[in-house]
C-alpha cells in the first residue's frame, strides 16, 4: 500500500492510536493489543497476550456487569457500544474506560475487536452529576416527608380542635339544661316564701323569710344570666325583642328599681336629648342593671354611681360611672369575655359584662370601658336608635 507522505504506516497507526485497541478470543483472552492500551493499563504486551482475559483487568463489580450484560450482548447482537467499565492499572489504580466491541467470525474462529477510550474526566464529571442527583432526590424526599408531617400535624390539630369544640358545646348545653331546670324549684321556693311573708310572723321569722327571698332573687338572676350566656353562645344567639320605646322612660324606671335594690347607695341619673328608639325594653333594663350592679360591687362604697342617658338623632348613649380603684390594666382587653373578671362580692358568676356586650351587639350597638385612678371607671354603651340605621 502506498503510504501518503507524512502518514505513519498501518502498524504504527495501530500501536500509537489515540485509543486502546485489542483483539480477544471468545473467552476474553487477549490475542492482540496495541501500545496505547499497554501503557494505559501499565502492563507489557507479553504480560497481556495469551496470559490475560479482558475481564481479568476489570474491577469485580465491572466483571459482574461484563458477565451479565457485555458478554450476552456481544453474543446476541454481535456488538456493544459505549459501555463504561472500570479497569485496574497494574499499580492498582482504577482506570475508567469506555469500550466498544465487535464480534467477528473468520474461518470459524470468533474474535472480539475492542476499542477502549480513557474516560477519567468524563467519569469524574458523571460521578458529580450522580452525586448531585442523589442529593436532589434526598432533598426532595426530605421535603416530601416534612410536608407529610405538616399535613399529619394539621390533621391532629383538627381532631383536637373538634374534640375541644365538642367538649365546650357539651358544657354549654349542660349549663343551659341545668339552669333551665333550676328555675322551677326556685320559683316554688320564692312563691312559698312570699306566702309565708304575708302571714303573721315573729321578727326573727320575718328576717329569715326575707333572707330566703333575697337569696332566691339572686339565684334567679344568676340563672337568667347563665341562660342568656348559653343562648348567646349556642345557636341563634341571645334573644332580643325590640319595639319602639322611649329610652329615657325605660332607663328612669330601671334606675328607680335599682335604688330600691341598693338602699344606702347614691345613684344619680342624668338625661340629655329626647326621642324614641327601637330597642328591647327588658334587655335595656337588664343591661343597665348589670352595669350598675358592677359599679356598686367594684366602686368606692362611699362614692356615687352616675348614669347618663343621652339621645341624639342617631343613637342612645348610656354611660355608667363609678369612683374608686380602677380595673387592673391586664384585665381590660378581656373585660367583656365570659367569666374573666372576678366579680368579687359574690354578686354574679362573671357573665354580667358579657351579657351587656351581647345585648348591645344584638341591637347593632357597641360597648367600651375605660378606667383610671383619677377618672374612675366608665362603661359606655352606644345603641343605634334603629338597628342597622
Amino acid at each position: 500500500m502506498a503510504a501518503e507522505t507524512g502518514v505513519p504506516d498501518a502498524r504504527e497507526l495501530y500501536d500509537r492510536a489515540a485509543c486502546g485497541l485489542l483483539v480477544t478470543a471468545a473467552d476474553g483472552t487477549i490475542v492482540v493489543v496495541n501500545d496505547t492500551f499497554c501503557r494505559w493499563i501499565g502492563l507489557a504486551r507479553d504480560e497481556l497476550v495469551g496470559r490475560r482475559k479482558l475481564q481479568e483487568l476489570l474491577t469485580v463489580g465491572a466483571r459482574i456487569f461484563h458477565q451479565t450484560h457485555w458478554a450476552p450482548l456481544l453474543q446476541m447482537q454481535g456488538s456493544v457500544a459505549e459501555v463504561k467499565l472500570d479497569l485496574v492499572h497494574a499499580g492498582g489504580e482504577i482506570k475508567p474506560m469506555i469500550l466498544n466491541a465487535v464480534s467477528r467470525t473468520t474461518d470459524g474462529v470468533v474474535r472480539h475487536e475492542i476499542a477502549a477510550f480513557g474516560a477519567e474526566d468524563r467519569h469524574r464529571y458523571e460521578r458529580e452529576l450522580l452525586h448531585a442527583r442523589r442529593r436532589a432526590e434526598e432533598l426532595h424526599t426530605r421535603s416530601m416527608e416534612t410536608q407529610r408531617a405538616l399535613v399529619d400535624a394539621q390533621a391532629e390539630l383538627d381532631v383536637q380542635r373538634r374534640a375541644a369544640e365538642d367538649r365546650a358545646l357539651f358544657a354549654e348545653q349542660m349549663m343551659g339544661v341545668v339552669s333551665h331546670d333550676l328555675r322551677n324549684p326556685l320559683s316554688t321556693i320564692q312563691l312559698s316564701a312570699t306566702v309565708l311573708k304575708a302571714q303573721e310572723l315573729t321578727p326573727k321569722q320575718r328576717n329569715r323569710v326575707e333572707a330566703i327571698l333575697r337569696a332566691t332573687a339572686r339565684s334567679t338572676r344568676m340563672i337568667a344570666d347563665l341562660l342568656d350566656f348559653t343562648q348567646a353562645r349556642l345557636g341563634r344567639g341571645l334573644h332580643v325583642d325590640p319595639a319602639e320605646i322611649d329610652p329615657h322612660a325605660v332607663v328612669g324606671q330601671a334606675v328607680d328599681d335599682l335604688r330600691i335594690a341598693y338602699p344606702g347607695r347614691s345613684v344619680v341619673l342624668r338625661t340629655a336629648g329626647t326621642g324614641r328608639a327601637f330597642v328591647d325594653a327588658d334587655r335595656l333594663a337588664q343591661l343597665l342593671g348589670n352595669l350598675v350592679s358592677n359599679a356598686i360591687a367594684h366602686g368606692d362604697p362611699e362614692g356615687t354611681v352616675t348614669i347618663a342617658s343621652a339621645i341624639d338623632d342617631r343613637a342612645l348613649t348610656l354611660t355608667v360611672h363609678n369612683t374608686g380603684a380602677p380595673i387592673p390594666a391586664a384585665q381590660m382587653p378581656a373585660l367583656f369575655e365570659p367569666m374573666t373578671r372576678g366579680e368579687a362580692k359574690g354578686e354574679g358568676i362573671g357573665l354580667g359584662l358579657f351579657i351587656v356586650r351581647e345585648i348591645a351587639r344584638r341591637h347593632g350597638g357597641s360597648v367600651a370601658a375605660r378606667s383610671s385612678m383619677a377618672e374612675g371607671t366608665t362603661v359606655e354603651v352606644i345603641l343605634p336608635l334603629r338597628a342597622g340605621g
Partner: protein
Amino acid sequence: MDVLARNNVRVAGDGATTLVFLHGFGCDQNMWRLLAPSYARRRRVVTLDLVGSGASDLSAYDFDKYSTLQGYADDLIEVVDAIGRGPVVCVGHSVSAMIGMLAGIAAPERFRGHVMVGPSPCYVNDGDYVGGFSRADIDGLLETMESNYLGWSSTMAPAIMGAPSQPELAVELTNSFCRTDPKIAQHFARVTFLSDHRADVPRLAAPTLVVQCHDDLIAPRSVGEFLARTLPQSTLRVIDNVGHCPHLSSPSACASAMDEFLATVGA
C-alpha cells in the same frame, strides 16, 4: 390482570411436556434463543420476561413486591397456572434458578423438575461459604450500572427490538436486549446479589439438574457443589464453558445435559 401480557409470555411448539425458561439478571428472554427453539420441536416451550426486564409491563413493577425473589416466584406460579397443562419443568438461569426454586417450594404440584443454569443461592461470601463476592463488589456493580444505561432513555419506547445480526444498524437499537429502566435495574441488581436462599435449598423436593460451568465468575464451582450437596434430589453437571451464560456460549453442552435430565423425569 393479564399475566401473559405482564410477563410478555411467548409459547412455541407443542407436546406433552411444557418447559418454562426464565432469563437471569441483565437481559431478557432473548437469552434463550440459541437453546430453547430446539426444544420446541417436541415440547411446548414457554419463555417470558421477568417484570421489570425486556418487554414486560414496567408499570407492574412494584418496588415492594419485587424487593424479594418471592415476588417473581409468585409471578411464575401465576404464569404456570395461566398456560395450564402442568406440571412443568422450570429452566432458570442464574437468579431465576432461585426464583424457580421458590416457586417449586410454594407450589410443588406444578413443577415436575427444575433445571438450574449457573445458579447461586447466595452471592456474597459468608463465613465458610464462598459465594464469590464481598459486599463492596456488589456496590461496585451498582456503580457500574449507574454509568451504563445501555440505550435507555426516557424518550425511547422500551419495546423497540434491535436487529441482532446487523450491529451497524441504527444506534438506538444497540443494546436493546439489556435495556431496562435504570431505577428498576438497580433495584433488581440489589435484590439479586444480596439475596440469600441457602436455607430454602433443602426444601425443594422435585428432581433438579444443576448445570455448572467449569469457569464462571458469577457462580463459582464451589457454589454449584454446595447446591448439589444440599438439594434433596439433584444431579450436578459441570460443562466446559468460560462465563456465566453457557446457554449462549455452549448451547449444545447445555442441551445434552438437559436432555439426559429430562429423560430421567419423563419429560
